[in-house]
């Protein structure tokens, strides 16, 4: 009998769990390893793939980072967001494009969670806002692997979890002997994403497991809950689960801060609903 958990783990280690990842990532990782490489070198490499550069800029200018001015060059994006964030956006841009087409509900949920995480980090004036926002964008990336691995069976998982009022995580465990958080951890490790991104993705349902980046993990936990609460997109859970006490203790959000966060989220709803990775011109083609 095959062990689905092992099988998925192997697919990830062979980089075969998700469709084609941009080749220039290897180039970029090599460059990153050289201590003397400059932002300009990295910008040049990314800009050499125009379609990709355009997609990265689209993500950078999306509602989740909330920059007041449009960022028009990869060079500026690298300075503002840092190499870790840009690298993860390069990785995720092709995956999200697929997601937007195949599982629009999950895409919308990821987007909404990222917007919410950004609102929380700004409201609480936390450091590393961009990393945390990016971790929130990618928090359910394990679910994409499950969708690809199980093909259309995932719809059944979601339907069953709704009928039986069981969380999608428990259904995942019973079917594939692992869950999206663990898969997300394997994936972000394989991709050599920074720990700041790895930990919130791996621990967003169980923040006690986080060690170094508990604040970012708690923000993603809150953002996931609030996005689900407002019914933004669909992540497989129709019911809101309670925010865990440790997350509350970690962030100590006051009533006024929470009121501001929820007000800002409501103000951003149209932007979340109208944002598309694929430009209208591309849609027409």
């Amino acid at each position, binding site marked *: 009998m095959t062990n689905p958990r092992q099988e998925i783990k192997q697919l990830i280690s062979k980089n075969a769990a998700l469709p084609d990842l941009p080749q220039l990532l290897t180039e970029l990782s090599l460059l990153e390893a050289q201590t003397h490489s400059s932002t300009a070198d990295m910008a040049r490499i990314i800009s050499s793939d125009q379609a990709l550069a355009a997609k990265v800029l689209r993500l950078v200018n999306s509602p989740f980072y909330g920059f007041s*001015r*449009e960022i028009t060059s990869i060079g500026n994006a690298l300075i503002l967001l840092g190499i870790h964030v840009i690298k993860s956006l390069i990785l995720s841009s092709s995956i999200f494009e697929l997601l937007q087409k195949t599982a629009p509900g999950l895409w919308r949920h990821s987007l909404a969670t990222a917007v919410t995480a950004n609102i929380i980090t700004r409201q609480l004036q936390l450091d590393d806002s961009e990393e945390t926002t990016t971790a929130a964008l990618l928090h359910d990336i394990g679910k994409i692997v499950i969708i690809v691995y199980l093909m259309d069976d995932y719809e059944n998982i979601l339907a069953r979890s709704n009928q039986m*009022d069981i969380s999608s995580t428990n259904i995942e465990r019973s079917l594939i002997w692992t869950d999206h958080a663990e898969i997300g951890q394997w994936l972000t490790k394989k991709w050599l994403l920074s720990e700041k991104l790895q930990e919130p993705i791996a621990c967003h349902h169980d923040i006690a497991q986080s060690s170094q980046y508990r604040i970012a993990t708690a923000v993603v936990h809150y953002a996931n809950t*609030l996005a*689900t*609460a*407002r*019914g933004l997109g669909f992540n497989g859970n*129709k*019911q*809101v*689960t*309670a*925010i865990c006490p440790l997350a*509350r203790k970690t962030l100590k959000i006051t*009533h006024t801060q*929470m*009121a501001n966060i*929820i*007000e800002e*989220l*409501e*103000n951003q*709803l*149209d*932007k979340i609903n*109208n944002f598309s990775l694929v430009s209208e011109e591309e849609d027409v083609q």
Partner: protein
Amino acid sequence: MQTIPIVLAEPGMTLDEDILPPDKPNGIPILGKGNELTRQVIERLKNMGIQSITVAGHPVTIPGEETREQALTSIETRFNAVKDDPYMMDILELFKKQINRSYGKTS
């Protein structure tokens, strides 16, 4: 606030966000938040190639979009499993207040 396509703009609506030049998103706003729309202004915006604007309240019902009542009912349903958690109920109340506000009700 509601973002609507320019074709649905009507005189009397109030801008809830600055309108930026379509070719220069970092430029000086064409028209600022708080301004009331007139027929002439709407025509001019259309001629400038503005696609959508954000206005105060929720003046337009877009087909398929959920109504205030639907939004309130569905959010309450989603909180069914955490009814015994005062912290979560507090969050629900904050959401309901904001839903009412964004649909133009101040209660």
